[in-house]
Every structure is written in C-alpha cells, then in structure tokens.
C-alpha cells in the first residue's frame, strides 16, 4: 500500500531571538505512490524542517500538505497523533530506540500505540526483525546492539504497521560507511518490497543517486537535483 504526497506553497519561518529565519519559501512537492524521492541540500537548508512538516510533527505557516488525500492542516493534535501512528513510519539519523525495551519490544511499540492485537503485533515484529537478519538479537537492548543493528531495528519499527509513507532523515548519517551502505541497501530493499512511498533527506550524493528521483532544497525552494 502506498499514498501520494502533495505539498503546495509551503512556508515556514523560525524566529531565533529577534532574527527571523525564513526556512521554506513556497515549497512544492509531488510524490507518486510507491516512489522514493531524495531531498538533498546543504545543512541548515531546511531539509529536516520539510520532513517534519510532511510527517505531521510540525505545521506550516502557509501552504497545504496532503498525504493520501488527507489535508494535515485540518487535523487536531489528537487526530494528527493517530494519523502519524497509522500512516507514517519515521527513521531518524539517531535510532531513537527506547533504551528500556529490547529490540523486539521496540518494534512492537507502534502496534501497541495503535491498540492492535498484541499477538499479531508480536508476530509482525518478529517477522520484520528476522527479515533484516536480527533473528538472534530479538531480546537485546539497544545498548547491546551495534550502530548498524540499532538502525535496522529502527527501520523495522518504522515499518511495523506497514505505513504507506516512510520518512527518513539521514538514516545512515550516524554510521560508518560500510554499515551505512548495508543499512541503506536494506532500506531500499524493504521500501521496494513493501511498495512504500518514501521521502529521504540526505546530504550524501551517492545515496540520493540510488533513489528514483532527487530534488535539491536551496534558498527555501525545491529544484530538480
């Protein structure tokens, strides 16, 4: 399952003390269902801000964002939380795994938040972790896993509820080149197999080149990469 992502005329301004920083100045973005789009740009260009807006973690000052036809600006905070849970899977630069839960439990968390049947949630989490080669790491806590393993668990967690949209913010940015490459291979493989729409933010041209389409965010607007 996948959804289309549409952003039109998105503006976002931050007030930093007395200085106003206009990060996004009318971003337009169309992502087709099942497509993987990379957004590249120098650091501070607003890539993460765009991703947060697409992920319903923040609201634009102006413009409209629709995911699968749902306009995000019209949802209450509670409905937004619900929407994030069912529709979006996040992978961040830092794994953001919960330290007090083991790998299997971390992958089960979205399912528990969604109040799915715990037995099905468990089966799904186990299958995902086995798929990424962590079958013997299920009961390991994040502190007992390597950086690459943690990020693989984080990808499984993002896919736990089979969300139609996957948002990744420098998913390999915190890893050494070798495990970074492995994790990205896995990310691509899973995205393709599950036919998930994806938006990936990176400053790594090699990674951007492997995506279906790459866009460059510069001066607050998106241009073809």
């Amino acid at each position, binding site marked *: 399952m996948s959804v289309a992502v549409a952003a039109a005329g998105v503006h976002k301004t931050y007030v930093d003390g007395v200085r106003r920083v206009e990060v996004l100045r009318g971003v337009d973005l169309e992502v087709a269902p099942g497509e993987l789009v990379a957004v590249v740009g120098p650091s501070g260009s607003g890539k993460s801000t765009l991703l947060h807006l697409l992920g319903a973690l923040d609201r634009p000052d102006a413009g409209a964002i629709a995911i699968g036809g749902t306009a995000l600006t019209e949802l209450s905070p509670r409905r937004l939380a*619900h929407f994030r849970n069912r529709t979006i899977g996040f992978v961040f630069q830092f794994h953001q795994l919960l330290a007090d839960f083991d790998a299997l439990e971390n992958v089960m968390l979205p399912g528990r938040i969604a109040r799915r049947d715990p037995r099905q949630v468990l089966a799904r989490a186990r299958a995902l972790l086995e798929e990424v080669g962590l079958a013997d790491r299920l009961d390991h806590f994040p502190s007992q896993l390597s950086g690459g393993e943690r990020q693989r668990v984080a990808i499984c967690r993002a896919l736990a509820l089979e969300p139609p949209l996957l948002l990744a913010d420098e998913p390999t940015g915190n890893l050494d080149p070798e495990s970074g490459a492995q994790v990205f291979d896995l990310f691509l493989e899973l995205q393709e197999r599950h036919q998930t729409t994806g938006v990936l933010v990176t400053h790594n041209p090699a990674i951007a080149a492997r995506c279906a389409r790459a866009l460059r965010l510069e001066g607050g607007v998106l241009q073809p990469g």
Partner: protein
Amino acid sequence: MPRLLLSPLPFAAVLALRYLKSTRKDAFASFLSAVAAGGIALGVAALILSLAVISGFQDALRSEILGRTPQLEVELPPGADAAAARRAVLAVPGVRAAQVQARGGGWVVAEGKVQPVELVGIEGTVPRSFPGAAGRPEGLYVPRGLAERWALRRGQLLRLASPRPTLTPFGPQPRVRTLPVAGFYESGRTQQERERVALPLRAAESLVGGGSRLLEVTAGGLDEALTLAARLPAVLPPGAEVRTWQDLNRPLLFALRLEKAVLFVAVFLIVLVAALALVADLALVTSSKRPEIGMLGAMGATAGEVGGAFLLLGALVGGLGTAAGAVLGVAGAWVLDRYELLPVPGRVYFLDYVPFLVRWQDLVVVLALTLFLALVSSYYTARRAAAMDPIEAMRR
C-alpha cells in the same frame, strides 16, 4: 517473550511499569526513587504510629475518665422538688436509673490528718461513677488510694467536716459528722480528678445544705446518653441544666482532639518532604527520557498517553511507599501494643505501657491523603512530559 507488551494493559501503564523497573539501572534515578518511596513509607508509618499512640491514650483515658463520670448530670434549680424531678426523668423512655445527689466541698479528718474532698450525697445504692463500689447500699465510701495512705479499715469511724458554719453558744463552728467507713472504690490515677467520697444523702445535706441538688441519670450507653440529653429538659422544671459526659469532660476531650490534629500536621510534613523528592525523581526521569518521549510522539502516542505514563509512574513510586509505610505502621503498632514494649512509670501516668490503637478511619485518611499528594506531585512533571514538542525533544 515480551510479556509486558503482550499484556492487555493500556500503553501508558506499559510505559510506567517499564520505567519503574528501569530506574533501578540508573544509579541516581534509583537513589532518588528510593528516597521518595522510602520517605513516603517513613512518613506514613510515623503518621500511623503517632496517631495510634494518641488514639490508644484517648481510648484508655476515656474509659478511665468516663468510668467515673456520670453519663448525664442534671443540676436542679434552687428550691426545686428533687423527688418529683426524679420521677419525671425516670418516666422518660431510655432512662435506666436516676438518683438524687447533693454535692459540696469538705474535708475528711482522721487522727490529725486532713484531706479536702468533694462530698457526694447519694440515696439508695452507690452510682456507677464510683467504680468498685457501684451497686452497694448507701454509706461512706472513700477512694482506695486515700484508704491505703491512711491505713483505713472498714467500719472505722471518719469525721467529715464542711465549711458551712453552724451557730453555737461559742460562736460559728464548722459542721462535723462522724460516719463509719462502709467500703472503698477504685480511685482514678489522673491528676485532674479531685478526691471524692460518697455518703448517705441525709448526712451530706446536713453538711453542705439542701439548696443545690443534682440528678445523676444513667442511660443504656454513652451514645444513648447523648440523645437522651436532648429529651430531658421537656420534663424538668425550668432552670434545670442538663450536662452530658461530653460537657463534663469537654476540656479534656478537646485537648485530646487538638493534640491529635497538631501531631497529624507535624508528622505529615515528613510525607510532604518525601513528595518533593518524588517531584525531583520524576523530573530527572523525564529529562533523561526526553528524546524517547519525542520519539513516542513521532510514533503517534498521544499527549494523554505520555502524561498518563508519568502520572502512573509517580503513583507507583508513591503507592509502593504508602503500602510499605502502612504495613510498617500497622504491624509496628500491633507489636508495640500486644507486647507492651514501651513501659511508662505507672505511678506517674495512669497506664503501665504506651498503648497503640490503629483506627481504620485514621488509616483511610492517612493513605488517601498520601496517595493524593503523590498524584499531585506527579501531575506537574506528567504535564510537562505530555506538553513536550517531539521535534524539540528529539534534538540532541
């Protein structure tokens, strides 16, 4: 097998239980949790024990005092017909007994020794306010303590004197009556109580005069006496004053209640300080879990679930402390009372040991108030955790 995540518990409870377990790994957080829970336990135990001491003393003092206080006392106006008033009172349903009494101050004199006493003139049998002699025929009854000090024997003649003068050819002289000792009653050990002697009404009247008369009224019990007190004035002559055992001991009962209230407030400060430790503990846990709280928000956990988890965590730490304190306090009170572990000099106090009595009403108030305080303390941090912006929280 992730048993906790397979349980049917709400998500907030799953988080709270895991955080409670995990604080043991963080040395400082676990220290703070232990201080908070331990402090609450200590405060609750101290509260239960100190209230139990007061209750124990109250209970002992009440039975001690109330044993020798009339349940109801009616002071008749001067010149009233005491016999008629007694008949009228006896006709009221619920009245078990009513006795005419005359009272006044005087002295007991024997072989050069003098003891000021309250003279209580009685008619018929000795009333219940003279424990140990109650129900015996009228006569002169003196406190056992006095009898022991003066080595009095039954049948020995004692002189009773009153300050009411009688005119003689030699000028005014105090009135004196000589009576044989009929028996003894158990004297109280409280300081407040004046020495009393019971003597036949006629003899008392000749000593203190017949102007002021009292009725001692006995009902089925202490509570019945209080309801009866409201019904009595209707059948009594105008000007008659009805006093209950509560009225007669009001200063003492008030002092006991005040003592309990003041002690409660003072000892509750321990719980208050422990609640501050709980606030610090939860603040530490929330700040160390900031990025995780942000990720929970990104995964779609609602503010209610995140806030609920920290509220529950505080309630769990507070609840554990409260439960431990309740067990400690109740068990401690039981052991101290059962084995009379705290002796006090019986000659100074009216008891040989410190009594402990845990009243369930006290227990309910202590537990409810402590848990409420734990919840209030957790509410602040829970709200802050719930209000965290996911992006801000995840930023490192």
